[in-house]
C-alpha cells in the first residue's frame, strides 16, 4: 500500500504557494481597497486552522492517516491564506515602489502613478542576462564609432571649414 499523505501535503504546499502568488497579484491589482480582501483572507485562514485543529483524531470507518491528511491540508492552506493577507499589503508597497506593475484602470493604482509612484512596466518580465541591467556588458569594450559616424564627423568638419572660409 502506498502512503499518499505526503503527496497531498506536497500538492497543498506547492499549489498554495503558486496560487497565492498569482491570486494576491490579481486581487491587489483589481481591488479599489485592499482591506476587505485582507480581512476575508485572514478570517478564512484562521477558520481553516481552527477546522484543522478540531478535526477528530478517531472516526469510525475512516483511517487515522486520512484524518491527518485532511487536517494537515486544511492547516497548510489556512496558513498560506493568512500569509496571503499579509502579502496583499506587501504587494501594495511593491506597486508604490515600482517593483510590480501598476494597473492604471485601478483608481488606487492610478493615484500612485499620478503622484509619481510606481510604474506600469513589469520589470521582472525578462530573462536573466548574466550581468546587472544598468551595467556595461562585461568583457565587451565600447564599440568603435562606426564608419558612417566617422564619415559624418569628417563631413561636419569640412562643412565647418567651408562655412568659415
Amino acid at each position, binding site marked *: 500500500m502506498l502512503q499518499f499523505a505526503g503527496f497531498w501535503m506536497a500538492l497543498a504546499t*506547492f499549489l498554495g504557494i503558486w496560487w497565492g502568488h498569482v491570486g494576491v497579484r490579481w486581487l491587489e491589482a483589481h481591488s479599489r481597497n485592499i482591506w476587505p480582501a485582507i480581512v476575508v483572507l485572514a478570517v478564512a485562514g484562521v477558520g481553516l486552522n481552527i477546522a484543522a485543529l478540531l478535526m477528530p483524531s478517531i472516526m469510525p470507518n475512516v483511517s487515522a492517516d486520512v484524518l491527518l491528511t485532511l487536517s494537515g491540508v486544511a492547516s497548510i492552506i489556512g496558513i498560506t491564506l493568512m500569509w496571503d493577507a499579509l502579502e496583499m499589503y506587501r504587494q501594495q508597497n511593491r506597486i508604490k515602489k515600482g517593483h510590480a506593475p501598476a494597473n492604471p484602470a485601478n483608481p488606487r493604482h492610478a493615484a500612485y502613478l499620478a503622484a509619481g509612484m510606481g510604474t506600469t512596466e513589469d520589470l521582472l518580465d525578462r530573462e536573466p542576462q548574466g550581468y546587472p541591467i544598468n551595467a556595461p556588458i562585461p568583457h565587451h569594450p565600447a564599440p568603435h564609432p562606426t564608419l558612417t559616424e566617422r564619415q559624418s564627423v569628417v563631413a561636419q568638419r569640412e562643412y565647418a571649414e567651408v562655412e568659415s572660409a
Partner: protein
Amino acid sequence: MMWEGLALGFFSFGIIGFGFYWVIRLERFGGYLWWPYPMALGILMIITTLFLPDAGWSALLGITGGSFIWGATELKEQAVRAELGWFPFNPDKKNPPGVNWIKRIKAPHL
C-alpha cells in the same frame, strides 16, 4: 482535536521561510542554472513519501519536497531581481555540474 495537522501547517510555514533563504543564497553564489538540482531533490522527496509507512513523516517530507520544487521555479526570477539591483549581484557565480545541458532547457517559472 488534531494538533498534528496544525503542526504540519506551521512546519510548512517554516519550510517556506527556509525556501526564501536558500533561493536567495543559491542564486547569489551559484546562479539560477542550478534549478534542476532542487527540483530533482523535491521530486525524489515526494516519491520517497509514497513508501514511508508513517503518515506523519510522509507528510513532513512531502511539504519539504513541494517547497523545494517551488523554490526551483523561483530561482530564475530571483536572478532577474539581482540583476535589477533589488538584491546583491555576485558576478563570480559557481556554475552547476552539467551547465551546458541545463542551458538547453528553458528554466521553469510560474
